[in-house]
């Protein structure tokens, strides 16, 4: 039995003084993680506060994209800082984000998509958008569905393998860390393979898998990462946009035939999928505008 993704809502980590209570209320924040020993004071102010040991948590990278100039082609190559690969590697950890301005909502969506326990330290100006994101996540919920992946990785725990996982996640090569060879995966990555060049190895895995077999593909952005969960009749596609600007017209291909689809897009409550097609092989649709995060729920009937 495959483990299902947990419905865990991330929480704002707040180490401000009680004077900031109005700021939180105005933003719409009710639930807090606070440094140990301060939870009672916040509860007295009417907040749902829990103690969170920041130092004891695993540190998550601030999610974002950086553009590096590719001198040879005079184009800007996006470098995505994302945590999905770590979450997949160690889902049981509690994670702490120290999110700079503009990163808190994406951090919340990222942790939610992977079903990990996370606390997010946000700057005051990000509180309203973080609150809106948390409300959005609570509203869409998390169906108890197992992770779907093409690639099973028997992780040796090494830094090099960590970089392979990072690069596979970066290129939407869906993987899951597994304890032993499992025939349900199209490709198995075993310890002892030559991963001295992690990028080349990740691309080699892509070629072993082949693009037509990939459970999900996206077209129209190179800064959107995908997470997929599902069972025989239902599939949920999580789309995380690290680019900092909305993506217009993101095309998604999901293997399998799905007759119905529902889009839930943060910041675009009335958006509908466009150009929907489905045949025996795959289902395709366009997300007209992807802000920070969206999920698409697909069903076979």
């Amino acid at each position, binding site marked *: 039995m495959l483990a299902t993704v947990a419905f865990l809502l991330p929480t704002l980590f707040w180490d401000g003084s009680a004077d900031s209570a109005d700021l939180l209320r105005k933003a719409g924040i009710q639930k807090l993680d606070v440094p140990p020993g301060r939870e009672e004071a916040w509860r007295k102010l009417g907040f749902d506060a829990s103690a969170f040991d920041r130092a004891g948590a695993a540190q998550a990278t601030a999610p974002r994209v950086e553009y590096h100039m590719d*001198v*040879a*082609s*005079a*184009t800007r190559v996006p470098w995505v800082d994302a945590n999905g690969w770590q979450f997949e590697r160690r889902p049981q950890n509690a994670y702490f984000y120290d999110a700079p301005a503009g990163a808190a909502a994406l951090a919340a969506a990222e942790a939610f998509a992977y079903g990990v326990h996370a606390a997010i330290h946000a700057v005051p100006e990000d509180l309203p958008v973080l609150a809106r994101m948390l409300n959005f996540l609570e509203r869409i919920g998390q169906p108890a569905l197992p992770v779907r992946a093409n690639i099973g990785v028997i992780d040796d725990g090494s830094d090099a393998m960590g970089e392979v996982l990072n690069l596979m996640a970066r*290129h*939407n090569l869906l993987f899951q860390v597994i304890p032993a060879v499992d025939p349900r995966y199209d490709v198995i990555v075993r310890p002892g393979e030559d991963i001295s060049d992690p990028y080349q190895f990740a*691309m080699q895995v*892509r070629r072993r898998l082949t*693009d037509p077999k990939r459970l999900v*593909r*996206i*077209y*129209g*952005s*190179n800064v959107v990462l995908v997470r997929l969960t599902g069972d025989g009749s239902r599939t949920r596609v999580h789309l995380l946009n690290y680019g900092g*600007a909305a*993506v*217009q*017209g*993101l*095309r998604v291909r999901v293997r399998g035939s799905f007759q119905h689809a529902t889009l839930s897009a943060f910041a675009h409550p009335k958006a509908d999928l466009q*150009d*929907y*097609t*489905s*045949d025996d092989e795959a289902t*395709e649709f*366009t997300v*007209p505008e992807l802000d920070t995060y969206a999920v698409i729920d697909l069903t076979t009937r």
Partner: protein
Amino acid sequence: MHRRKFLQMAAAAPAGVPLGLAATDHKLPEYRVVSRYPAAEKPGMPGAYPGQVVSVHAEKCIDTASDAPDAAVVSEMMSRGMRSLTGGKDHRDAWAQFVTPSDVVGIKVNCSGAPGIMSSPAVVAEIVRNLMEVGVPPDAIWIYERFQEQVDSVHYDRHLPRGIHIWTAEHRRGSTESYDPATYVETTFFDEDDTRSNLIRLVGGRFTKIINVPNMKDHGAAGVTGCLKNIAYGSFSNVARSHSGTVTNTYSFIGTLAAVEPLRSRTVLQVMDGLRGVWHGGPFLFNRRYRFYPKRIMIGTDPVAIDRLLIDIIDEKRKAENAVSVWDRSEKYLAGSDAHRNNPNANEFVREPGHIEYAAHLGLGVYDIDKIKVTRLEV
């Protein structure tokens, strides 16, 4: 919802490509072409006049001191060129061979070098004037290009009648909403994530005819950029992925894109605007010293034949400027993009002017210079 797919797999080389053309230097990618549009009985490329080019020169078509075209001279060049190509008794009769009043016409301009070089408003306005004389209403005429900021710098609106659409696919670079998700070429060049290049929706969804208006330009990757590159890379998304490092796949990608239906069938006329030209650094104009004035318009329906002539025009100019030939594949000239901008003997990529011959083998036109009939006119 199922859709019809016309799949074209080019695993090694397309049918008809001689081994010598595809071998050694060029490892051809595998292309998967998806389109629901069938070819016309007689596709627009190479069209009604394969292997024929009318080349009209006019010394007074542009004032090189002020860089200002002379609209009256341009009009005469177009009129004589069109009549010569078609044998029409007058220019209206000539244009009526390509469009009818019920057509919706896309005019594919080239603005990648704007504002220093682009499909001249004078040439575009003359095309529009002729379309309207045939009876095409203004709201059925669409000037189109991919990038908004490039077109903004040209101000076509100042030269055109009201009601003409001036349209771009990407108001913001990278947005894909204006491209057709069901018409695309899929391939992997350099392990890129996004492996599709989609056709602009209007090409299949609205236009019934397309007129292609490229410039006479050198190109750092393709060798030259003329009819084929303008209609191909200018009508599809996500094409810059074909270059990486010093390698470019323009050799096979340009022709492959240009041959996709309905682009191939609906592109019925080529008007190469050579009032100005760029002999180095194209498709952009980094430095005005690389601009020159061929003072020429080439007209035809065969993009390969026109581009074949373009190679010689650019290469002769480069030779006169002591610049390395567009055919030179030597590694010693590879020096990165900054050097390429500043030095006519520095290449950014191994150039691929062979893309024109490759396109000929896809059936897009006549490449053999001995088989191209050139009619030269002087205005």
